[in-house]
């Protein structure tokens, strides 16, 4: 375990000061010692840059909007329901779906670190990991929503979920009016990442 040290004897301070060089030094050392495989690192980057991202979550939301049986399964056991669509894995082992209504708007934060449902939304955006979001979302969610241009009706309550454990929350945004005739794929394209964190609303095209 790392213990508390005075500043100068934290081992990390032995690395070069410039972040990119610091990373290079760490990576070079671990590769030289045979502890990480550069090709495995490339595969990890490719996974989160190109394969796993918020379009997964958008497909789940659109399906929940059009398929009542899937909607019921999702609300009952989200982990099982999204696993059936192939979305399971690291940082998505215990999923819970929370649904926005006219009365309640859900919004997700992790005040202690940056917990986020990776298999459904990918790597969290910079703002989700920022001190400002982590500090403010629980105390003044409406002011944070205003930073995103979202103003809720006065009779809508905000329920903020602070992900303090390994449970990961997916917000199911409200389906916008005027989308009754649209198919699942077209609906999925309307669903934004931010709407599934609860800092955005879905609007019809």
């Amino acid at each position, binding site marked *: 375990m790392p213990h508390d040290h005075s500043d100068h004897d934290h081992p990390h301070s032995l690395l070069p000061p410039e972040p990119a060089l610091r990373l290079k030094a760490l990576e070079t*050392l671990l590769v030289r010692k045979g502890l990480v*495989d550069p090709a495995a690192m490339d595969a990890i980057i490719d996974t989160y840059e190109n394969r796993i991202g918020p379009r997964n979550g958008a497909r789940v939301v659109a399906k929940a909007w059009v398929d009542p049986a899937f909607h019921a399964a999702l609300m009952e056991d989200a982990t099982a329901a999204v696993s059936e669509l192939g979305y399971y894995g690291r940082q998505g082992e215990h999923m819970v779906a929370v649904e926005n209504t006219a009365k309640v708007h859900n919004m997700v934060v992790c005040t202690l670190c940056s917990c986020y449902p990776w298999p459904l939304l990918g790597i969290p955006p910079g703002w989700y990991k920022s001190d400002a979001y982590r500090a403010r979302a629980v105390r003044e969610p409406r002011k944070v929503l205003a930073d995103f241009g979202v103003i809720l009706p006065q009779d809508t309550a905000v329920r903020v979920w602070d992900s303090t454990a390994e449970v990961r929350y997916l917000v199911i945004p409200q389906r916008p009016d005027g989308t009754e005739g649209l198919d699942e794929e077209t609906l999925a394209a309307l669903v934004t990442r931010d709407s599934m964190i609860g800092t955005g609303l879905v609007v019809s095209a």
Partner: protein
Amino acid sequence: MSRVHDMGGRFGDGRVVPEPEAEVFHEEWHGRALAVVLAAGFLGKWNIDVSRHARECLAPTDYARFSYYEKWMAGLADLLVAKGIVTPAELAGHADAGLSALAEKKRGAAEVPGVLATGGPSERDSTIAPRFGPGDEVVTRAIAENTLVEGGHTRLPQYAAGARGRILRLHGSHVLPDSSAHGLGDAAEPLYAVVFPAAALWAHPEHPGDEVVLDLWQSYLSPA
């Protein structure tokens, strides 16, 4: 007292700046930093609670000035030394690093999809029976500290210490981070979603109907 990472409710931070969905990594090295931390984690020498605690143990001055992936790198460097996997001299570039005895645990590119897809579920069987059910009124610990280890890892944020809330749902039994972060075993116990009126947490809540939900372990809670 808590540590620097426990910032929920803090005053003084600026506005939140939205960003486009397509922006995954802001710098080339960010993706590599994520990858090196995950790949080193594949060696199996620590769990998620240990790695979170390593980042939380950064000096408050470092935590505040480091960007996100700098915190990850620093936590990794400190853990590698703490676990005896690399030496401080190697980290400083002063020693010729030879092949590690752990090298056989390294995962190759072909194994990456499988490892990421398997994840690390935290739900466990437990001999501790759930004490609460949905609707029960509970109070959180008055002091948001790890009771097993001084200055240790815990997942009760300071802003929710000593607060009165209501059980929303039982998530089953999960690994207790306060134990697991310190090599004291999984110590799984019931985990609940607990809902608090904003007015129970803040002197100036934005709206009378607003609520905050936290996932909290049974040992963090007492009957109200």
